[in-house]
């Protein structure tokens, strides 16, 4: 096991800068997830950590070593790829044992190690099969097994669940999390799926256009988003954003009674963006903020998403799954002031 540190990592592809000075420290044994939309630089960061690509400038440290000039094989890492990258011409046993080819171990030890990994991943009975005789989930487990067999200091996962169907993805998510709890190695996991990030990570790194937007626990990034991008990216459906105005400790929204906001950093009257998550905006409730007309309903079983037009703006709220309102109903929506997030209208940064 080892910690990983990225120090002012910069990467150019030709004249295009894709990483703008990434600084990140991953603790020993931590499960960290890099998440962001396509092109945000998360996979590039992972590839630089793995040594498959070099940084234009900056340092990568694994443990106490600066590994900038080390080959991937010298970094004591293992990587699981999106397309599994298990060799179709080799059996599961050979695939899992492939990483031990260059290890200085006896053949018996290698076999024992492969058997042990297969047992942990419940794949013992599949060892003699070829990849084309396996399901998607089993292939992904082989790929994980190949990474595990070398017992590396750091596991790197590059969107490993993207090719699986929704049900299998949920199952593999749980398996990877359990695996981490069992083996305790440092894991850096890249995904574009915020649900994966929230459910698996000890800490989440949210990236956009080659810059880190926020690093925090799932609770922190959900409840205290650093900026508008994080607020919208984390959580589904995304946060409702409304234009408002802050003055003398009160927030004014069109058609809504002003409510109190205890932000200390604002000194003067200024326009703000007010964010409230659909999870915190309930239909009915004790402290109604807005009233609007229901446009669309999306029943999810335990709850129903309600799309309501308030003063020409569509907001999403949640209602009971058993007795939702009907389309066309005029409903009141309530939220508590502590669940309202204020963002600077110009910079998009959170106002605290």
């Amino acid at each position, binding site marked *: 096991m080892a910690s990983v540190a990225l120090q002012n990592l910069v990467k150019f592809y030709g004249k295009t800068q894709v990483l703008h000075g990434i600084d990140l420290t991953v603790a020993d044994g931590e499960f960290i997830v890099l998440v962001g939309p396509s092109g945000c630089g998360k996979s590039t960061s992972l590839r630089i950590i793995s040594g498959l690509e070099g940084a234009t400038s900056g340092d990568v440290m694994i443990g106490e070593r600066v590994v900038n000039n080390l080959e991937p*094989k010298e970094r004591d*890492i293992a990587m699981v790829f*999106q397309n599994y*990258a298990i*060799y179709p011409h080799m059996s599961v046993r050979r695939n899992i044992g492939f990483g031990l080819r260059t290890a200085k171990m006896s053949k018996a030890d290698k076999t024992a190690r492969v058997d042990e990994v297969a047992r942990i991943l419940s794949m013992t009975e599949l060892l003699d099969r070829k990849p084309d005789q396996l399901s998607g989930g089993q292939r992904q487990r082989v790929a994980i097994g190949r990474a595990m067999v070398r017992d590396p200091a750091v596991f790197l996962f590059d969107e490993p669940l993207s090719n699986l169907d929704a049900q299998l993805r949920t199952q593999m998510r749980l398996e990877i999390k359990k695996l981490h709890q069992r083996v305790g190695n440092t894991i850096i996991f890249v995904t574009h799926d915020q649900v994966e990030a929230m459910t698996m990570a000890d800490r989440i790194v949210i990236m956009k256009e080659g810059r880190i937007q926020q690093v925090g626990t799932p609770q922190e990034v959900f409840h205290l988003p650093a900026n508008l991008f994080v607020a919208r990216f984390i959580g589904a459906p995304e946060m409702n954003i409304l234009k408002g105005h802050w003055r003398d400790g009160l927030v004014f929204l069109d058609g809504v009674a002003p409510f109190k906001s205890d932000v200390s950093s604002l000194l003067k009257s200024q326009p703000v963006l007010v964010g409230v998550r659909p999870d915190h905006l309930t239909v009915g409730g004790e402290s109604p903020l807005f009233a609007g007309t229901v446009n669309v309903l999306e029943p999810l079983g335990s709850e129903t998403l309600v799309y309501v037009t308030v003063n020409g703006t569509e907001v999403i709220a949640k209602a009971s799954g058993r007795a939702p309102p009907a389309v066309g109903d005029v409903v009141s929506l309530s939220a508590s002031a502590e669940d309202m997030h204020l963002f600077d209208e110009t910079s998009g940064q959170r106002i605290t």
Partner: protein
Amino acid sequence: MAAGQSIKPVSDALLEVKRPPVPRSYGQYIRWLLLFSGGVLMVMPIAYMLSASFKYPFELYNLNLIPEEPTIENYTYVLEDGRFYQWFINSMVIAVITTISNVLFDSLVGYTLCKFRFPGRMFVFIAILSTLMIPTEMLIIPWYLMSKSFGWLDSYWGIMFPGLMTAFGTFLMKQFFETVPDDFIEAARIDGLNELQIWWTVAMPLVKPALAALAIFVFLGNWTAFIWPLIVTNDQSLYTLPIGLTTFSVEQQVEWELIMTGAALATIPTLIVFLIFQRYIIRGVVMAGLKG
């Protein structure tokens, strides 16, 4: 379904689907006719070769495919002539070595051009491709001058060197390596293999169909090569089969029946190679997007 009612097995007759007759148009008949004609045109020379190898000289110019007085004397004569075996061995050695060389070096260059990014990569690739535009006949004089200056005339090396690597093979292999996902290569790199090990252990097994197709193309090309081996060799003991067969011609007479017999015998290895690997040829050609 009512209680107690069981499902009866469907009789086999009911399962037999009667297909409606396929409507055939005139166009289809014309296509078949053209294909049949093409087939006959290609098979006729081979059939004549086989037929002639069982004929006496007096019957040779009779175009009947079935000899009136069939004989195996031609085969006895050719097989008893020790030179035939020497030429056969020469052809085999040259074809096998050039095939192995092409499989190794064409794939190595193709792999490098496909999977590595380095300055001048496209220039090298285009330079290799551009040699495909030069007819072989134009290269014979430079090849001959090179052979002469290096002292390779009348040697196996002299016969083989122009074909040890080919632009076509390099192009074919590069196209195939494009189908190997980079993730495989990178996974092996992380697993600690060096670049040569990755090429040999990971990439090569994934392009087996292409290797088989290339091997067949190169083997057949060298087995039947005529002009260059004819020019570069004077020593009869170094002749390949196609050249050796021409020695059955003398000043006043061409012994066609013996040439046809030798040619028929020479066809056997190529037929064996083709029959074993033909599915790879088709796959290879389809995947490379080339016309055969």
